[in-house]
């Protein structure tokens, strides 16, 4: 296993740098585990705000994780031991393995060696190459920096790499602005594989390219992976590309992993409600499909929804998905004032995270409305009980929970619908 990352978190502090008042945090990655085997392409898909780019930066150490563990190049046996140690709580065994394999606890010289095994390609081909350097110098930089190769050998290698990415050798003396987007990305690829890396991270490598160029680059990536037998992490928002390239896929939403499994299976038969709507939203030529249009937008990563992050938009949300009184209040207010137009004087007050008080409606009327609207207004499903109170009713909601990744149907899903334990 090239990369085995456990429970990675990355929180970015927001707010006054002098630490006045509460420091808020953007929880870009909030407890994500990922495994990248050798000789496999792992797809990481998600939309903006999902945290996929941040995750890519965490495993290449461009960004330091707030917490979590990253093991590099671990033999299968050792990995099994490690996971056993995690489960059983054997801190000594765990620390021993981390001492040998953890990227976060490595010595400077160890890291230098590890860096040789890394390669990364970025989204914007133009911004990936220093405009003041020649192609040759750009490609040589990793080799020289990590001490992998030097001088004449490195120069020869540059030509070899150019040939590998199907660029003519004389390109070595050109400057980036003389190249097209596709050519620039090939140079970036050549640079990334210059040190024969065991891990190749590609962050949206073809998003900025034309579709015909994209096809060429994707074929090239497949070839390279075949030859180097490296583990590849392909980060993309393009599901068709992920389908075409990946063996295994991870789907992220708002900093968490929601579904992971065999790529073709997850994409063709998604189970998690987010994955289902994501896949249904992808336009595919000649396929007419029933689109599941999600309402709303990706959540604010500072003030995340309670319980399951996806519940405000989830078409299948039910009572324990994390509805809070604020959410129910908003929906109820709309229903009472607009749709049902009960009275001018209804008032709803929040009474703690899972309780509300409603004035100006009779409990029977309220009950009837809730019954009628449960189907279309998901938050109402969280109503646990309603007790009459002076002037109205007091409503109590179910307590919500946050789902965790559990195995189901040959994949792992993080959704309460698929958790078999009791509520």
């Amino acid at each position: 296993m090239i990369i085995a990352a456990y429970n990675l978190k990355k929180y970015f502090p927001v707010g006054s740098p002098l630490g006045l008042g509460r420091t808020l945090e953007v929880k870009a990655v909030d407890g994500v585990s990922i495994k990248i085997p050798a000789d496999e392409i792992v797809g990481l898909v998600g939309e903006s705000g999902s945290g996929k780019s941040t995750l890519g930066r965490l495993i290449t150490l461009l960004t330091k994780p707030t917490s979590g563990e990253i093991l590099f190049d671990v033999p299968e046996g050792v990995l099994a031991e490690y996971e056993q140690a995690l489960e059983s709580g054997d801190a000594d065994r765990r620390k021993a393995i981390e001492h040998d394999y953890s990227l976060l606890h490595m010595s400077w010289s160890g890291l230098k060696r590890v860096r040789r095994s890394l390669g990364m390609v970025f989204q914007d081909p133009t911004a990936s190459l220093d405009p003041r350097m020649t192609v040759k110098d750009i490609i040589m930089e990793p080799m020289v920096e990590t001490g992998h190769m030097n001088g004449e050998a490195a120069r020869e290698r540059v030509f070899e790499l150019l040939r590998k990415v199907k660029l003519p050798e004389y390109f070595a003396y050109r400057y980036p602005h003389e190249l097209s987007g596709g050519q620039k990305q090939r140079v970036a690829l050549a640079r990334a594989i210059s040190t024969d890396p065991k891990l190749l991270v590609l962050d949206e490598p073809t998003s900025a390219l034309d579709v015909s160029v994209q096809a060429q680059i994707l074929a090239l990536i497949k070839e390279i992976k075949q030859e180097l037998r490296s583990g590849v992490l392909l980060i993309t928002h393009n599901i068709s590309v992920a389908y075409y390239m990946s063996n295994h896929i991870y789907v992220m939403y708002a900093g968490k992993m929601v579904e992971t499994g065999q790529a073709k299976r997850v994409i063709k038969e998604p189970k998690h409600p987010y994955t289902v709507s994501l896949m249904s939203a992808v336009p595919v030529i000649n396929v007419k499909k029933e689109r599941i249009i999600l309402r709303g937008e990706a959540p604010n990563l500072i003030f995340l929804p309670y319980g399951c992050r996806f519940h405000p938009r989830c078409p299948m949300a039910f009572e324990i998905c994390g509805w809070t009184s604020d959410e129910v209040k908003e929906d109820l207010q709309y229903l009472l004032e607009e749709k049902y137009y009960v009275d001018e004087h209804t008032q709803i007050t929040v009474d703690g995270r899972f309780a509300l008080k409603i004035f100006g409606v009779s409990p029977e009327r309220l009950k009837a409305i809730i019954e009628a609207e449960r189907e279309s207004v998901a938050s109402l499903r969280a109503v646990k009980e309603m007790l009459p109170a002076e002037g109205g009713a007091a409503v109590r909601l179910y307590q919500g929970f946050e789902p965790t990744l559990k195995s189901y149907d040959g994949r792992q899903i993080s959704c309460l619908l698929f958790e078999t334990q009791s509520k």
Partner: protein
Amino acid sequence: METKRESELRLSFKVLFRNKSALVGTVLVLLYFIDAFVMQVYPKLFGITNPNSLVENFASPLPLPPSVLHPLGTTAYGIDLWSSILKAIRFDLAYTLAVVLSGAVIGVILGVISGFVGGALDEFLMRITDIVFSIPYLVLALAVGFVIGRTYTSMIFALALVWWPIYARYGRALTLSIKTLPYVDSARLYGMNGLKILFKHVVPNVLPPVFVQVSVDLGVIMPIFSTLSFIGFIPNANLPELGYLTTLGLNYLQSAPWAVIFPGAIITLFSLAANLMGEGLRDVFDPRRRSE
């Protein structure tokens, strides 16, 4: 497909030459530099024997209008304007370069470090920059003058002190935008340490825009410098210097206007030329405007 490669240098020249006004500006600035160079190395070429002082002619102490003998006329004390201006350009250019270059070097170094390191250091340096920025140059020059003494050297010092904040801000802004680019990330990925990244990736990309700013600033500083000596701030300045020459003619403004106009015009002309040249250079260096 083989795109025909236009040599970068040729394209740079082409870009500069397309802009007619920039071309004129560049040529003019070059003329000033040539004059300074000649004055330094071989003043006899222009028939000047003492390039470091003004030659008085007490035989005819009143300013004379332009004539064959004195192509630009004379000013007070019978000082010939043409030769004096030629001598003065060298001094003014030297002082201006001293101010701009030292300001730029100090400012850019501070700005780049501030932007690159970030955090508390950045905040601290920026606050200092803000404070110095808010000081009007004239006031500072006067203050420095009264402390260190009023000489040309101390004026260079005072002006450079006031001028570096602009470069600090500029350098910092450029550094901030470069810092987040993927090619810097790529270098960091392979363990390149901060200092190396600074010199290999950040500085080479910061310098060209700074260079453009320097050329424009030449045109801004020279008049400022001349102003300082014009207001008589520097005593005992029997040195060929454009501001001083203008002062000399001041008494005769009504009767011999050329004594004031010519030195003044030379200053203004340089300002304009440097500005035009700077605009042209901007087109040459900015990759986006280049391909336009």
